[in-house]
């Protein structure tokens, strides 16, 4: 790990990375719980609560709040994921106190005006309608739903029309009281700010919140859904498809986690990886072809992403399945391993090249409960991966048998060819693109 990383403070709940090159301060105030705590049948509740807080801070109206933030030379928003809720701000240094005051109003004094909630609900429904235009987003949505099945990771962070309709103001106020607790927060500051000031600002904000027990993430590990399955998302007039193929992937606590990460780099992690070479460079079938292994507090999904034109979709799926088979049966080569390790070790410089990225890694470690030294020892851990550990990780973690294929395309045009392209299909479904996954 670089000197810059080591210099970062890692005090339990106020992380700081100072860099005075620009007169800018960024901060994240993270809750250790996210949309997994949405009440049953109310997916989208955490996101809705967050936006409602943001729009009614200190009892002001949304227009006033947005104008104040802009006039400060600031930006303020929030990201909700299944496991976390992160309020993020960036501001020109001279206005830091001003943006922190508004942040305090968002977290500690949301007005929760009911008219704003109804407006927000209508706005979110309109966004869901617009999202139907985004084929890639549709593919991801259906893939996540089907790959995780009954596990709460399957639920949409945004919610659906029917779940949003169920959410009442009291549900969100109760959720707020449950999750916005001082004990549930981690603070991260970066840029033109010293530790002392950051700690004072964090304390000031924390003191405005009601104390109480922090909620716990009690989710269990997702289960493997057996068999090869196909979900065809039918949308008219598509000249191109969106395809995601995958199953369960990795967990940062797996002993073979980084070995699998290295193998995936060879398979589909970069522009010169196997997938891009075979699908894009040799055949020109898809503008992009990648595989990914995201991490979360529980096991996440492994997926391959391509988007060939409709006529190439079936052969592209066949090729990808064969490539996955080859990866499992033959493994990666010594030369590929050596190359991937060099790439990962050297490119790690770009995970650390700004103060906000460095503090972001520290924050991720704390939020996701990563093993001690996950980022600090990353380079040494990558260097220690051997051909045997990388290939064993592939066989242990990536399944060819328990696999989901999700395709967005026009069913009447290519449905039959797609079904034939997936041998030993255990189940197949066609869903209309404008229906809700569940």
């Amino acid at each position, binding site marked *: 790990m670089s000197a*810059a990383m080591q210099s970062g403070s890692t005090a339990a709940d106020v992380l700081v990375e100072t*860099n005075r090159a*620009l*007169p800018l301060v960024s901060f994240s105030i993270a809750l250790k719980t996210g949309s997994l705590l949405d009440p049953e049948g109310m997916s989208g509740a955490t996101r809705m609560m967050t936006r409602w807080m943001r729009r009614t801070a200190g009892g002001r109206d*949304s*227009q006033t709040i*947005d*104008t104040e*933030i*802009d*006039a400060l*030379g*600031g*930006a303020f928003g929030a990201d909700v994921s299944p496991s976390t809720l992160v309020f993020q701000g*960036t*501001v*020109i240094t001279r206005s830091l106190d001003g943006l922190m005051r508004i942040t305090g109003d968002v977290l500690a004094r949301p007005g929760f005006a009911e008219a704003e909630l109804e*407006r927000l609900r*209508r*706005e979110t429904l*309109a966004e869901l*309608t*617009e999202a*139907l*235009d985004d*084929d890639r987003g549709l593919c991801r949505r259906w893939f996540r739903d089907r790959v995780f099945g009954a596990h709460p990771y399957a639920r949409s962070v945004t919610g659906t029309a029917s779940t949003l309709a169920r959410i009442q103001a009291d549900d969100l106020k109760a959720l707020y009281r449950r999750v916005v607790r001082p004990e549930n927060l981690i603070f991260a500051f970066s840029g033109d700010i010293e530790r002392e000031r950051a700690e004072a600002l964090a304390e000031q904000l924390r003191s405005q919140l009601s104390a109480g027990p922090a909620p716990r993430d009690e989710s269990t590990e997702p289960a493997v859904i057996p068999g090869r399955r196909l979900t065809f998302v*039918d949308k*008219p*007039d598509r*000249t*191109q498809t969106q395809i995601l193929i995958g199953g369960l992937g990795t967990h940062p606590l797996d002993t073979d986690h980084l070995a699998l990460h290295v193998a995936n780099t060879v398979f589909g992690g*970069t*522009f*010169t990886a196997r997938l891009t*070479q075979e699908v894009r460079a040799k*055949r*020109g*079938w*898809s*503008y992009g072809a990648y595989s990914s292994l995201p991490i979360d507090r529980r096991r996440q999904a492994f997926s391959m992403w391509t*988007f060939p*034109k409709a006529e190439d979709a079936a052969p592209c799926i066949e090729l990808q399945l064969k490539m996955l088979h080859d990866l499992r049966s033959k493994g990666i080569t010594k030369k590929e391993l050596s*190359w991937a390790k060099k790439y990962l*070790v*050297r*490119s*790690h*410089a*770009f995970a650390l*090249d*700004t103060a*906000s990225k460095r503090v972001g890694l520290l924050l991720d470690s704390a939020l996701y409960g990563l093993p001690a030294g996950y980022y600090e020892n990353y380079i040494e851990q990558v260097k220690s991966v051997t051909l045997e550990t990388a290939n064993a990780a592939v066989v242990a973690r990536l399944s060819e048998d328990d696999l989901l294929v999700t395709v967005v395309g026009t*069913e*009447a045009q290519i449905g039959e060819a797609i079904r034939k392209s997936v041998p030993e299909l255990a189940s*197949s*479904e*066609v869903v*209309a*693109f*404008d229906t809700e996954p569940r």
Partner: protein
Amino acid sequence: MQGASTRKLLQAQKLLSAINAKAPEHGQLEHVETIPFGASLSIDRYRMKNGLSILLCEDKSAPVVSVHTWFRVGSRHEHEGKTGLAHLFEHLMFNEIEGRGAGYFDRKLEEAGAESNASTWLDWTQYNIAIPKEQLGLVLELEAERMSKLVLREPQVTSEKEVVANERRYRVDDDVEGAVNELLWATAFTKHAYKWPTIGWMKDIEGFTTQDCEAFYRAFYAPNNAVLVISGDFKLETVLGILSQRYGVVASATLPLEDAQPEPPQTSERRLEVKKPTATEKLVVGYHSPALGDFDHPAISLLSEVLFGGRASRLHQRMVRELELASEVRGSVGPFHDPGLFEVYVAAREGHSAEELLTVIDEELKKVMEAPVTEAEMARASARFELGLLGGLETADGKASTIGFYETVLGRPAAAFERLEMTRRLTQSDLLRAARRYFDPRQRSVIFVRPELGKAGAEAAE
């Protein structure tokens, strides 16, 4: 006694003399000027004998370097029937260098830990590589080689054409906004080369030959048509020596004259209606707008922030919050060498028509043509500008990108800061004048998008 700055100058001259003494045929370097870049950084401009412009911005805040190569060739330099060639060529630049074998460039750079990419737009094509500082020599070696030793072979050209066709399907043909945006520019421009899309028409992409690509390379990829920007943690003496040796073997070229066709003034509104597979109506409007270098550009940009910048903007407040007509409204003015478009995009909510959206747009634009925006609105917009500029300079790559863009389009690498200062000096009258000059309905093109959505079938089979 010599002052520190004099000593520094003498050292620099001595360094250049030593480098130039060993330089290849075209590799002599001349220091042209030092330009302040924000509060704490500066840009040193050098010129090589072969015409290559070099801009160096030393910044030790992280052990990385970013190398950007900007070529003054974009889709505006193409011709009817050959649209998309600049963009296709950008893809081909990653293929093969003489004596290196296909794929060597990407493979070697990734092994070195690089992050690389490229982009093409109306006025330019740029290549960017960010690299750990120890690997800078490798990047400069490969970048200099591909400027003059690119190998173009039939199979790679054929495959890359298919990749670009797929990119077009992704960004345009199967994307409602992409498709309508393309139509807007084709409607608003009748003569100027901005009328065709950077990605090119599909039939043109399919028709390119290897010979087309070779001719394009020889015509436009020369040091005297390029700007090289290096930003980050490097040693000046080392970098200048490498640059002279690597790029000094590349000769300048006679650049083709651009067959520039100024766009005649638009004197009446143009309207089109199209059907697309989308759930709700959309409205797209394009007003002819000033070039980036025009005195009015900062004013119309600030006005754009007042009207469309963020959720506190006038149009968001009116259309999304108050009237709940739209799910999204955006507007921006193009940053182009020649006059472009001020584009407005609005997505209607279900049950509302594109005509309703246009009525509100007209009302709001009429207001800024009749009465000045408030000082508070201008201050808000100006603060957003400043935050956007500073936020874009956090990384070495962000700095190189900002420097390269403004040098390529305006010839002034620190123009981002000049524009910020100009923005602060703008008056309410400036914005009033800009609104009246550019928001004339006779100078606009309007596209109404109607939903045409076949019902998809649904079934389940176990």
